[in-house]
């Protein structure tokens, strides 16, 4: 075997492996991205994530390719968000209250309760929102969430538990601060206003008031 033949064999093996990974994970990765960002951005994130996997194919762990790809996509989305955090936050809240219109939704996705849940989710911190989406929408176990986030299964279980409590508290706050439907409409209007005047609108985080009182 010549050196050149060996190199070609190595390349062919890599391509075969990558085609398999692409085939298996394209849909779940696209769904992951579209649950978090708009269509165009999601398509870019997916393409860039697979390109990263191809360039760093020796780093992709056997048997956990999907989770590794989720982790890369998450970091890409987070890095993109840093460029315009405030506008991103407003867009995110609006997006969660109004699911993308062109996406085929599951049966219950458009009902009022689901809208309220997504709205509440949009008010949580990125860390809380991510673990809840990973468990509920990506249907990952605690151990798998740990692999995506680079933490232990125990730590991910703790994070899910805490995030769930904060979601419940936010949901109850939304429920009690006005009738569900009218409240959601108001939130949508606030989100739209935030998009139009991003610098004037900073939706208050649930804990901000109490944190100030604590000082």
């Amino acid at each position: 075997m010549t050196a050149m033949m060996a190199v070609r064999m190595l390349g062919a093996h890599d391509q075969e492996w990558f085609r398999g990974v692409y085939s298996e994970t394209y849909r779940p990765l696209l769904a992951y991205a579209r649950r978090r960002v708009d269509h165009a951005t999601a398509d870019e994130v997916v393409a860039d994530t697979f390109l990263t996997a191809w360039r760093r194919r020796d780093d992709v762990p056997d048997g956990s390719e999907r989770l590794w790809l989720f982790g890369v996509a998450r970091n890409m989305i987070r890095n993109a968000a840093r460029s315009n955090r405030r506008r991103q936050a407003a867009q995110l809240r609006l997006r969660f209250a109004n699911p993308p219109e062109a996406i085929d939704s599951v049966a219950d996705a458009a009902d009022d309760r689901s809208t309220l849940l997504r709205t509440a989710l949009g008010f949580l911190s990125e860390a809380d929102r991510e673990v809840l989406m990973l468990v509920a929408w990506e249907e990952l176990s605690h151990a798998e969430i740990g692999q995506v986030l680079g933490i232990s299964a125990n730590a991910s279980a703790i994070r899910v538990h805490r995030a769930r409590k904060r979601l419940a508290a936010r949901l109850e706050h939304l429920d009690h601060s006005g009738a569900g439907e009218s409240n959601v409409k108001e939130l949508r209007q606030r989100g739209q206003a935030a998009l139009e005047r991003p610098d004037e609108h900073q939706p208050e985080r649930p804990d901000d008031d109490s944190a100030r009182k604590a000082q």
Partner: protein
Amino acid sequence: MTGTDIHDDLLTELRRANPVNADSLASATDADPARSLERILADTEDAPAPGRAAPSLSPFGSPARPRWINAAAAAVVIALVAATTIVVYDTGTGRDATAAVHQAVEATIQVSDSATSQTTVTFDFDDFAEPWELTIETTFSDGNVEYQVTPGPDLEDMGIPQMDTYAEVFVDGQAYRSVADGPWDGPIAVDSGTGSPGASIQSNLTFGVAIDDLGGLYDFIEVGDEEFDGVDVAHYRTHTTPAGAGAGFGMSLGMFMMMTNQQPTEQLDSIQLDVWVDGDNLIRRASYSAFIDGTGSFSVSTSWADFGVAPPITAPTN
């Protein structure tokens, strides 16, 4: 156990609120994804070298399996020609700083029910004759929390009014507070878990939550080995955004948010965040500092001690 096996009414509702049905999306064999795949396979750029761009993209702290070193292509070729398998470990980057910090976060959370902390907030603006400090001493013990805020002297001319000392105790679902070392007011019922103001305050003071949020920060570098409070510690550093830094310090979040609301956040886009980890893999100190161009700087530093041996907290009496 998969995500669908984690039974919970709220999570079940959340599953139904899923806005994207993956089965309805394009598959990898559809025209556009297939074209995208071929473009990717045509890419011949080398993988980023360890320590360059790769760490920020990796969801894992260190390579999850032995890696082939692409740059040493000749070695791989020689190995294949010899019909042997060669596995080369990456030994060039040392321990991964982000992974080390994240592991310390997990280890510290395990003992977070019992600890003490001291936070110092320092404002050092150019207009100030000298830096102004505020300290917060906190004890966490078996789910109960007590803290005392001691502000520095008033700087009326600089917009910092006279502030009194302030103390709060959360114990067994009851809250007590005292202003200016005066009598304790309370008990006030804290309805934990319902989103009431009291519960939120308590949540902000929960030691584990603040440490836990450090696990959401990446791109740490190792500064070196140092000594802190008589203990050998490893010093790590990263840079983050105002929101990221605020989330990492539950106790000082209020002060931080107050400051960032007063100052244009554009001036604070890079905040230096330092973490010190001891030999037991516990986080002993963390601080962040920000420089506001043309105004000055402020920093928040928190140290922790008494892991597992914090004194019990009892209801105060007048």
